[in-house]
């Protein structure tokens, strides 16, 4: 029973992989059957919830994992339970909803694969007890959301939106990875439970600011906080069920989850507070502000999500037990109403064919159930009783009022955002459901009673749960309490109720609602003004700016590549030689501490010196020779000269080989020389001078290296072994040969392979020649390709 959670998470991924097959069997009902898995998880988590003691967490160990040290251990505490319940519960509803919504889409099997992976990764992430595993799941959500957002990949818009989301969240992922590695290095463990138990806080570590910056970057990119918020409205290109899931319980909430998870290890410092509060409050206000100016129902919801995420970030930043409590409650509130509203947007889109709220009116009579459910969700969004949203908003106000030194900033922006939320809620309901006598009634494509239950079950259930939790919030106390305990608030004991008594928070709420209603009355000028501001802001349209940035980056990269990869073979070599001389030159004179045995050089033999002189003259002659044949012959002299040198110093095998190789090469040269062009001077004087200087430098440098090495390794322990064992072990008297064919036989095998390949290459190159000649005769120009292929192969 203990490991059932890990089995279930594995099952989600397996089901995701198997969907293409399952889809053949179940066809359009695939979503319904797949929903069983998250449903089981939901039930298991509910049972865990009832077993949860206020001050305990449990860790489910497994021996499986990505790598040693990255085992799939799953940690169950209040925080992960709250997130897990929402992810799995809403996941069930989304799958049911999608099974009808997506019925006419192509590639449904792929859709379910991505969705299951996404769901599995989210659940894995919130429960994982290892920072590295958490990171891996985090990245899987980014990749899965890329495919989901870009699901309609025929449209350029959705491809762009998907890419943007991937780039931004991918950047965040890299930051997270860096932060996780640093944390692991500093603390010596990646296991979250250990970190929490040892109550390690990184606040005093010199790298703290770096780690915190990276973590916050990861969280704010994932959670679409200002100034990274722009990918989220773009993600509206995804099919509506995906948006519903992305916004309510998954993806964007992962950043908030990360902040809460990491809070006991890094939270509570000045930097934490101020950076999160500032980002949060700006995002909160901007989201609500922009939402007011939209016409598309989905876009309105997207911007309210941004605002809600800002609220959560702000609350985590305020950093008091009350604010953390408010953040957790608000996450539940938001998940419940936002999931419902998005699915309603899908229902309305399906029934009427449009999502523009100003094009619609008077739907109440035709869609009474939807209308009532929408009303409940919007009441929660506006933060009115008796929904859970009311409790959430009260807690938020309470938390904001606790900080006298910053409440002058938080309260106006926060209350402003909430007034706008109230106004948006009323506007949406009014425009959608209240009839307008002057306009024609809306014709529905599908009547509400013709829609299958599973399509509207989601919003209904979520609204009912929201209402139920609003009326009896005590149920939430246990997990929230437990979650808070493990966020380091040992003392916190919370109690939740709908009625808080008559206090300043309530007065503020009443003020908010009244102002919201007032804004609703003057909504036309307000929307127009916001619309104008948005048009004006389009100059700084962030998605466009972002894609421009990416384009610039690519262009610069191409430019740099062209600069470095210029295609001139000799300049590559030039760069290489200069770099080697410079780097090794510095190094060679810095090495002083190596003790080499003092060696006396062997005496100079006149005849050997003469041999070298002749060889030297021929090599110089080869360089400056005007004719091909004389250059090649001079080269032959060089080869034979070196062979003689080998012979003189007792390397008989070497000498024989060198003689043979040299002869073969000479023959080859002479064979093809007829086809080779005349030597031509292709370079000008200046470049010859430059090359000359560089070559002399290389030569001097090599001489210095050789001298510096002091003819090292005269003591030859390895060779002693060969001398001793060559005959006794390998039964050969020629030691060099024994080394080649016995001691180092595998090397020789490799050498033979090279030689065989070269021979095959030479053979085929010459063979193609014959074909070319034949084809040339028949006047075709094809053979060029053959050669090119050969050269690349």
């Amino acid at each position, binding site marked *: 029973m203990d490991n059932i959670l890990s089995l279930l998470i594995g099952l989600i991924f397996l089901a995701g992989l198997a969907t293409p097959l399952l889809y053949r069997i179940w066809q359009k009902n695939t979503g319904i059957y797949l929903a069983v898995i998250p449903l089981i998880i939901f039930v298991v988590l509910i049972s865990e919830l009832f077993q949860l003691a206020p001050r305990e967490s449990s860790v489910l160990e497994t021996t499986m994992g990505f790598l040693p040290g990255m085992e799939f251990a799953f940690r169950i505490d209040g925080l992960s339970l709250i997130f897990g319940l929402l992810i799995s519960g809403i996941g069930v509803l989304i799958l049911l909803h999608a099974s009808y919504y997506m019925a006419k889409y192509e590639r449904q099997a792929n859709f379910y694969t991505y969705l299951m992976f996404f769901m599995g990764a989210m659940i894995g992430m919130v429960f994982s007890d290892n920072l590295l595993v958490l990171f891996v799941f985090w990245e899987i959500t980014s990749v899965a959301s890329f495919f989901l957002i870009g699901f309609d990949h025929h449209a350029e818009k959705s491809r762009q939106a998907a890419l943007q989301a991937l780039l931004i969240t991918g950047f965040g992922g890299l930051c997270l990875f860096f932060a996780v590695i640093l944390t692991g290095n500093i603390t010596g463990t990646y296991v979250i439970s250990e970190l929490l138990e040892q109550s390690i806080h990184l606040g005093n570590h010199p790298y703290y600011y770096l780690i915190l910056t990276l973590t916050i970057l990861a969280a704010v990119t994932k959670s679409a906080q200002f100034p990274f918020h722009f990918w989220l409205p773009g993600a509206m290109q995804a099919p509506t069920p995906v948006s519903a899931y992305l916004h309510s319980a998954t993806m964007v909430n992962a950043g908030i989850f990360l902040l809460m998870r990491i809070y006991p290890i890094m939270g509570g410092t000045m930097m934490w507070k101020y950076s999160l509060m500032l980002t949060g409050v700006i995002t909160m206000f901007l989201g609500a502000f922009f939402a007011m100016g939209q016409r598309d129902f989905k876009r309105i919801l997207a911007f309210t999500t941004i605002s809600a995420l800002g609220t959560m970030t702000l609350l985590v930043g305020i950093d008091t037990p009350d604010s953390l409590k408010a953040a957790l409650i608000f996450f539940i509130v938001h998940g419940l109403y936002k999931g419902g509203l998005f699915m309603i947007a899908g229902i309305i889109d399906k029934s009427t064919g449009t999502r523009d709220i100003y094009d619609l009116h008077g739907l109440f009579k035709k869609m009474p159930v939807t209308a009532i459910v929408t009303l409940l969700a919007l009441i929660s969004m506006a933060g009115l009783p008796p929904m859970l949203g009311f409790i959430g908003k009260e807690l938020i106000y309470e938390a904001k009022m606790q900080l006298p030194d910053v409440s002058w900033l938080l309260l106006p922006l926060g209350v402003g955002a909430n007034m706008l939320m109230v106004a948006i809620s009323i506007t949406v309901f009014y425009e959608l459901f209240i009839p307008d006598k002057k306009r024609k009634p809306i014709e529905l494509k599908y009547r509400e009673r013709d829609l299958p239950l599973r399509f509207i079950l989601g919003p209904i259930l979520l609204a009912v749960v929201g209402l139920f939790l609003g009326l009896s919030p005590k149920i939430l106390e246990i997990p929230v309490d437990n979650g808070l305990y493990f966020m380091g608030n040992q003392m916190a004991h919370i109690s939740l109720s709908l009625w808080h008594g008559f206090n300043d928070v309530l007065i503020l709420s009443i003020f908010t609602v009244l102002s919201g209603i007032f804004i609703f009355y003057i909504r036309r000028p307000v929307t127009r003004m916001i619309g104008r501001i948005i048009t004006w802001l389009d100059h700084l349209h962030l998605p466009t700016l972002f894609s421009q940035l990416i384009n610039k980056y690519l262009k610069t990269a191409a430019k740099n590549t062209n600069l470095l990869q210029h295609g*001139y073979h000799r300049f590559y070599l030039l760069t290489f030689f200069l770099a080697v001389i410079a780097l090794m030159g510095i190094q060679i004179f810095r090495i002083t501490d190596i003790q080499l045995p003092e060696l006396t050089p062997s005496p100079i033999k006149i005849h050997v010196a003469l041999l070298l002189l002749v060889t030297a003259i021929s090599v110089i002659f080869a360089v400056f020779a005007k004719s091909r044949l004389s250059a090649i012959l001079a080269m032959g002299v060089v*080869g034979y000269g070196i062979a003689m040198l080998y012979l003189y110093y007792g390397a008989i095998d070497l000498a024989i080989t060198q003689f043979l190789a040299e002869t073969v090469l000479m023959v080859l040269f002479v064979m093809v020389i007829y086809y080779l*062009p005349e030597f031509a001077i292709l370079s000008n004087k200046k470049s010859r001078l430059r090359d000359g200087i*560089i070559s002399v430098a290389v030569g001097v440098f*090599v001489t210095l290296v050789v001298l510096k090495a002091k003819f090292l390794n005269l003591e030859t322990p390895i060779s002693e072994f060969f001398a001793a064992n060559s005959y006794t072990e390998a039964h050969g008297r020629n030691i060099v040969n024994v080394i080649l064919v016995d001691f180092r036989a595998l090397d020789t095998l490799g050498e033979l392979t090279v*030689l065989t390949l070269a021979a095959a*290459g*030479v053979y085929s*190159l010459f063979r193609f020649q014959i074909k*070319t000649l034949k084809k040339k005769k028949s006047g075709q120009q094809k053979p060029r390709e053959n050669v090119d292929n050969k050269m690349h192969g």
Partner: protein
Amino acid sequence: MEYVIAVFIGLLYACGVYLILRRSIVKVILGVFVLSNATNLIIFLSGGIQRGGAPFIPEGAETVDPATISDPLPQALILTAIVISLGISAYILALKYRYFDVTGTHDLDQLKNTDQR
């Protein structure tokens, strides 16, 4: 003697580098050839050139005193190197031959593009 050989190696390197910096492919091939010979010599020199006998175990004996023979290990290495450089040189030569045959040029600067022109 080592000093003389060291200078000789330096000279070979200078000539080899100059040759492979040319634009004409034939010269580049010659340069590769010179460079590989020079490198072999460095390895040879590193084994010591105190003149000794050939690394053979005499008839009747089971082992040989390493001090009396030249070091067999660098020789084995160089032997491999010579054979491989023969293979490579032959291959480049054939390639060059084909290249000239197809394109009609031996200027390396014309070999910039991987695509056909």
